[in-house]
């Protein structure tokens, strides 16, 4: 039986099903825990479940805690051979609402693979700012106008937060490279304890892009250095995706409606320079350039 099936309700061109099906390709059969978010809405409406593996959704904030409970229960029942436990959570559920539970799960060293599907805002409720929304991004809670040039703060560094918990396996990936997702999901299961995988996934409506552009835009985020693809094992950076010719961030920004105000806003140039500085810093820090 397929682990994830057709007929789900995702928008045409959505990145989430690509991430989910490729993770499940490597880890199924498994137990799936889902937080509230787009993925829950599109795949688990009553009578329209798209899941072929055991699936549970409880609340927005407690996906990590539920997964921890399942892991302990399976251990107590002696059923540890039935497959790993995988959490699929959105960026808001990971970085804002559920960060306490996530921190607790990391701290108690539960044997759980936590996958954060990062589409950079609360896209399920219509594009509100989350902790993982990047600088300068238009959302309905950080609108661009006289007062604001989009979001002011930086994107929360969840990878560093996971590393600070001494999580044995931490990695980022992008839906533009699904084979990389498959390899990382498989590699993660070799580690005992908590695992954190963050997958960059385009949102058609929130980012203001066409469905067919989703993959090229996700690829551009990597190629500009704004979304570095990293892999840490026991706190050490073991692999990065090198970029042959790093592109200017403007190329990535101008394709999306959520950034289009930067081209005419009085402070837009400032923000664009800031984003370029972040990309340069990433390239320096992780050695992205060949």
């Amino acid at each position: 039986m397929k682990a994830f099936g057709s007929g789900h309700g995702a928008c045409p061109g959505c990145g989430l099903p690509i991430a989910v099906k490729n993770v499940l390709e490597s880890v199924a059969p498994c137990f799936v825990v889902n937080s509230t978010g787009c993925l829950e809405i599109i795949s688990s409406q009553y009578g329209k479940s798209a899941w072929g593996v055991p699936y549970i959704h409880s609340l927005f904030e407690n996906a990590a805690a539920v997964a921890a409970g399942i892991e302990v229960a399976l251990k107590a029942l002696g059923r540890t051979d039935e497959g790993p436990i995988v959490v699929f959570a959105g960026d808001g559920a990971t970085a804002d609402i559920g960060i306490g539970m996530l921190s607790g799960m990391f701290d108690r060293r539960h044997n759980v693979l936590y996958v954060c599907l990062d589409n950079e805002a609360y896209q399920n409720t219509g594009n509100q700012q989350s902790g993982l929304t990047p600088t300068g991004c238009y959302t309905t809670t950080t609108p661009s106008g006289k007062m604001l040039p989009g979001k002011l703060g930086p994107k929360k560094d969840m990878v560093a937060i996971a590393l600070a918990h001494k999580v044995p396996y931490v990695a980022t990936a992008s839906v533009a490279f699904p084979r990389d997702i498959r390899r990382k999901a498989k590699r993660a299961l070799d580690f005992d304890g908590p695992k954190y995988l963050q997958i960059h996934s385009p949102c058609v409506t929130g980012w203001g892009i066409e469905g067919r552009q989703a993959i090229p835009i996700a690829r551009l985020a990597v190629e500009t250095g704004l979304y570095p693809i990293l892999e840490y094992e026991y706190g050490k950076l073991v692999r990065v995706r090198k970029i042959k010719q790093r592109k200017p961030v403007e190329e990535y920004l101008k394709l999306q409606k959520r950034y289009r105000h930067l081209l005419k806003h009085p402070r837009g140039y400032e923000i664009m320079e800031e984003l370029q500085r972040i990309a340069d810093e990433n390239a320096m820090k992780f050695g992205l350039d060949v």
Partner: protein
Amino acid sequence: MIRITLGAVSKPLESLKIKTGDWGAEYPVIDEEKCIGCGECEIFCPDLCIELVERPESKKEESKKAKKVAKINYNYCKGCGICEVVCPAEAIKMELKEIYKGELK
């Protein structure tokens, strides 16, 4: 003892009864001559409606390139066009559905 009756339990893969194929205005068409059977479209398709199948015996000799060919299940394809973009052989083209052709009256 709590009893869970079937009324409250969702069955696996019930989504298969939802035919999402009529969502989009466009649909992909595969040029079987050009298809190199690499599976790139299969791995990217968000609706899981592309699969690689064995090329029919009669056509195997004509195209020596690949033994496999991509096949689309139009019951679920939402016409996003991702397969057209990612195809390295440019074998997939999006076409407008018949009912959307012509002028508005």
